Every structure is written in C-alpha cells, then in structure tokens.
C-alpha cells in the first residue's frame, strides 16, 4: 500500500500549505500582538496572500493529479486560484478602515477566516474528487457564515449569518444527496473515473435525479433563481467587504465546482444538465434584473445584479463548448474587478455618521469626491456592459459563445436583460452626478482604498480595450479541462 501523502504531493500543494501557514500565523499573531498594534494584521494577511501567489509560480505549466487523485494541479485551477487571491487581497484592503469604523472587537479572527475561505475556494477549484470538493466548499461556507455575522451589535448582520447558515446547510444537504447518488451509481468519487462510468447510462432515471439534485445544490451556491432567496438579505446584512468577497469569491469558486462536476464528471449527461442550466439561466437573468430595478438599497441592488450575473455566466455553461467555458472564465475575472470596485465605493461611503449603502447616500458624490464617483460610474457602465469597459468584452464573449452553440434565443434574452439592467445602474450615476443634496461628513479615501479603486478601475479599463491576454489565459485554462473532447460527444 502506498504511503498517504508522498513528498511530491507536498510540493504540489505548496500554495495551499503556504496559505494555511499564513492563516495560522495571523491567528497566533492576534494573541501575541498588543491591542494597539493589531492593525498590522491586515499586512500580515496580505503578505500571506502574496506568498501564496508566489508559490503558484512554479505550477504555471503543470498538469498533474496529486494526493491519490483528490486534487488536480492544472491551468484551470491556477486561473481560479489567481482570481481568489486577487479578490481576497482586495477584500483585505477594503476591510481595514471598515472594521475600525464598525468597531469590530478583533481583526485577527476576521483575517484568519478570510484566508481560510480562500483556502476552501482553492481546494474547490482544484478538486477532481467529490470528497475534496465537498470539504473545500464547507471550509469556504463555514468561514462565510461567521464572517457574515461578524459585526455582532448589528442585527442585520446577525440575521444575515443565521439565514446564510440555515439555507447553506439545507442546500448542502441537497447537494450531498445528489453526490451520494453519483457515487452510488458509479462506485467512485473521482470525477474523471466517474465520467467514463456514466457513459451509456444516460437514460437511467436515478442518474437524472442525481443531476437535478446537484444542479439545485450548486444553484444555491451561485444564487441562481429559484434558489436565490438567501442572497439579497445576506448581501445586505453582511459587512460590506464580506459581501464583496462573497459575491465574487464564493460565486467564482462555485462556478469552478460546477464546471468540474458537470464538464469533467458528467459529460455524457450533458443533454440533461445543459437543459436545466438553460432554464435556470433565463430565469436567473430575468428575475434578477427585474427585482433589482425596484431596490433603493445599493447593496441589495448589487445583490440582485449579482444574481442576474450568475444567469449571464450560466450561458457559457449552457453552450457547453470550450468557447463557452472560456467565456465564463473571462467574465468571472472581469466581473470580479467591477463588483469588488463597486463594493469598495460603498465601503468608502461608510463613515462614522453614515451607513452609506442607500441610494440617497450616493447623492452628490461627484462634487464631494470626484474620483470615487468616476470609479463608480465606470463600474456601473461595466456591469451594464457598455463599451469600452471590460464588462462589454465579457458579455460579448458570453453572448457570442451562446450564438456559436446555436442558442440564439438565449443570446437575445441576455441582450434584453442587459438593457433592463442599465436602468438601475444608470440610476446610481444620476444620483451621483445630477443630485446636489448631501448628508453627513465628506467621504475620505484612505491609501488602501485608493489602491483598491486604482487597481479595479485600471483592470476595468484595460481589460475593456486590451482583452487579448486575459482571453488567451482563459482559453488555455479552459482547454486543460479536456472540454474539446467533450464537445465532440455533445454534438
């Protein structure tokens, strides 16, 4: 019998080990540092994230399965790991002043949980075994349950944590039920072995039930309609940086999990799951955008907008081609920057005397802080898909992938939905630039927030005019999945 974890395994999971070490370091430093020095923990966290990113460098061209087939180190997981680390770093930078303003008792556990959530996401993206994916998912989800309720004196934060926990546990049950059916029908938990075991079983009703249950379970995690009910309340109640991380990191990780399970694990069932995602995609886009129109709280509005974006992202999965997966990856990266940027502006508006997440709090922002207003304008246009921003490029790839796979109706619905979404994105711009009445003290940009806004603004602009590099990286990442071979089976 081979030993449990060999030395080469330790080499391949180096990024995960570094991140775990960093998380533990933060936890210990929290106890050792005197109270007034604990603000430095944010920089320790950033250092841990940076070290993890550095540890990813040797694996730029790796394509192996490690730890007895539990984990894949490939370009696909690398793409997502970079995304998670970027999102986590931006979240930490956003959190520094936010935690001070909210008077959160101790930042140590907060940063520890952010790092552990990132670790969970990395394991989800790398997992090619249902067990690894499940444990990664739980590590991420449990961290987020606690982070959502981190501002304890705030009742909405408590409510968000409880709602997210209950619905998360419920959805995990559904997901696990589907996974256990997959295991029972194939006799293995490894997705790649499973894929060949399912060939020829397409008409098995038990397998169809498994597909339906896993789609529902994953649907909860990506907040697709009709499994989205938790998202608006949780997004509104959770601390703003956590909401940002939740809407970007958790969503991207869930999409990585979705692609691994369905594209790698059940390619022979693609007719079934593509039909399900087709219906979910249309429902999610439409319901998300229509609900967003009526919101007056910006965090809640962005929650519905994030639901709608899950619908757009599903279009790439529905297409099922290598091009579709590539488009999903591209849009996930672009979406991360614009979504994080938008939440950074909301964080900026949180002052001692203003909560800053209502639409009226944006009133007159252009006159008080022109840079923040311009950044928000850019993010809103990008989320709405207006050129020359990155959001346009992302949507362009998604819609063309759908058309390429002959889903013309889906593409038309996507375009119509983008038009609806412009209404509520532009409404924020109107408040910032055309209304004059203001309240509270002037919002001040700290260096950390300036860095966040600078990076996200640059990314939104640069990826809008020069998307080639991102496209090439995403294309290579998607192709490591072996989607090309699957596409032949689909047609």
């Amino acid at each position, binding site marked *: 019998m081979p030993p449990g974890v060999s030395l080469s395994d330790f080499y391949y*999971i180096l990024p995960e080990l570094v991140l775990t070490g960093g998380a533990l370091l933060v936890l210990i430093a929290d106890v050792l540092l005197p109270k007034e020095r604990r603000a430095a923990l944010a920089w320790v966290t950033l250092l841990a994230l940076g070290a993890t990113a550095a540890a990813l460098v040797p694996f730029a061209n790796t394509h192996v399965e490690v730890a007895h087939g539990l984990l894949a180190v490939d370009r696909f997981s690398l793409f997502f790991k970079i995304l998670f680390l970027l999102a986590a770093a931006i979240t930490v930078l956003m959190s520094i002043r936010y935690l001070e303003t909210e008077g959160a008792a101790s930042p140590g556990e907060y940063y520890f949980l952010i790092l552990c959530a990132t670790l969970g996401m990395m394991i989800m993206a790398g997992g090619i075994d249902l067990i690894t994916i499940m444990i990664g998912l739980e590590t991420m989800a449990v961290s987020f349950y606690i982070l959502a309720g981190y501002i304890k004196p705030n009742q909405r934060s408590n409510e968000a944590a409880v709602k997210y926990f209950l619905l998360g546990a419920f959805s995990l049950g559904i997901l696990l039920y589907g996974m256990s059916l997959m295991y029972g029908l194939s006799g293995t938990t490894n997705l790649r072995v499973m894929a060949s075991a399912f060939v020829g079983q397409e008409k098995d009703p038990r397998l169809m039930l498994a597909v339906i249950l896993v789609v529902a379970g994953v649907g909860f995690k990506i907040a697709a309609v009709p499994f989205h009910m938790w998202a608006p309340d949780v997004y509104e109640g959770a601390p703003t940086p956590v909401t940002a991380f939740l809407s970007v990191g958790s969503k991207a990780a869930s999409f990585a999990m979705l692609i691994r399970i369905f594209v790698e694990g059940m390619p022979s069932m693609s007719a079934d799951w593509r039909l399900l995602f087709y219906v979910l995609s249309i429902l999610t886009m439409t319901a998300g955008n229509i609900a967003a129109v009526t919101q007056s709280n910006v965090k809640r509005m962005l929650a519905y907008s994030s639901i709608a974006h899950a619908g757009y992202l599903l279009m790439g999965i529905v297409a099922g081609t290598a091009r579709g997966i590539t488009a999903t990856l591209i849009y996930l990266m672009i979406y991360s920057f614009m979504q994080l940027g938008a939440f950074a502006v909301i964080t900026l508006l949180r002052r001692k005397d203003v909560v800053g997440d209502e639409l009226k709090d944006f009133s007159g922002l252009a006159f008080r802080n022109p840079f923040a207003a311009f950044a928000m304008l850019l993010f809103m246009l990008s989320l709405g898909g207006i050129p020359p921003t990155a959001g346009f490029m992302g949507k362009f790839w998604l819609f063309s992938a759908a058309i390429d796979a002959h889903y013309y109706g889906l593409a038309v619905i996507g375009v119509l939905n983008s038009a609806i979404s412009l209404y509520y994105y532009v409404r924020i711009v109107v408040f910032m630039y055309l209304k004059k009445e203001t309240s509270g003290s002037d919002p001040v940009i700290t260096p950390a927030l300036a860095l966040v806004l600078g990076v996200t603004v640059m990314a939104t602009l640069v990826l809008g005019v020069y998307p080639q590099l991102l496209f090439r990286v995403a294309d290579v990442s998607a192709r490591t999945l072996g989607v090309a071979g699957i596409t032949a089976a689909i047609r």
Partner: protein
Amino acid sequence: MGSEALAFYAFGAVAIAASLLVIAQRNPIYSVLLLIASFGALSGLYVLLDAPFVAVIQIIVYAGAIMVLFLFVVMLLNAPHEETEYDERVHPLLRPGPMRFGACLALVLAIELWWALARGVDTGAFPGGAVTSVAVIGRSLFTDYAFAFEVTSILILVAMVGAVVLARRDDPRERRKPGER
C-alpha cells in the same frame, strides 16, 4: 438458541420498546433520552450485522452529537410538556397538520417494510462486508484520503474559531460605538 440470536432479540426488544416509549412520552426530555437508548440498541444490532463502523458512527453521531443537540434545544425552549391541541380520540390520519404528515410517513414505512419482507429473504451476506470494517476505513482515510482528512482539520479549526468569535462576550471597555443601525 445461540448467544447471537439471544443478543439480537435483546437488542431488538430494547429498540422497539424504547422507540414506542419515545412517542408515548409527554415530556420531551424523556423522549430524547429514550431515543438515545433506542439508538444504542440499534447500534448493537449493527454489530451483529457485521457492520462495526456503522455501529460506532451510530453512537458517536446520532446518540452523541445529534441527540445532545436535541436535548439542548428542548432545554433551551424550556418545554417540559407538549401541548396537544387536537382531540386525542380522533384517528391519527384525521388529525390536523403535522400529525397527519407523520402518520402518512409511518404508513409509507410500514408498506415499505412489508414489501421488502415479502420480496424474499435470499439476500445473503452483505457484499461490502470487508469495506465496513473499521481497520479498512481507517487505512483508506489515512492513505487515499489523507489530503481530504487534513483539510477537514482546517475546517474544524474554522468552526472552532467561529464558535469563539460568535459566543465571545466583547469587553465593553474595548468596544467602540457600534454603527447606528
């Protein structure tokens, strides 16, 4: 009658008696405690079925973790006696809401049991007998699934830190003014 058969009847009798008492009790705390007894007897039956791992899990997870949680909830709610709003002389299927649902479930279970028993008894030994041994499961946990096992330790650490964060009473001198909402 061999000692194994004797043990089977003993465990079976305890399981049935305890389960009946669970639903016959008015005091929820007694119900919970009797359910633990019922689970213990069931785990004895699993040992007789050559499934020691399931038996141990039955004790640790059900009797240990889940029932303690039940007990906590019952005690937190401070509900020494169930309130019954319905007329007890009415047939269970005709009673309102949850009672009817429970009765339906029991009926389904009875039909399933009858169906399973009527289908024949030539199932023989459980084919996966070797897999259920604690030693085999332990070995695969620490070799094939060592990575997943290690990540689980992080997951548990996160849960522990989370419990501390949520349950800790913040030092009032340290806490600054919370947000206005």
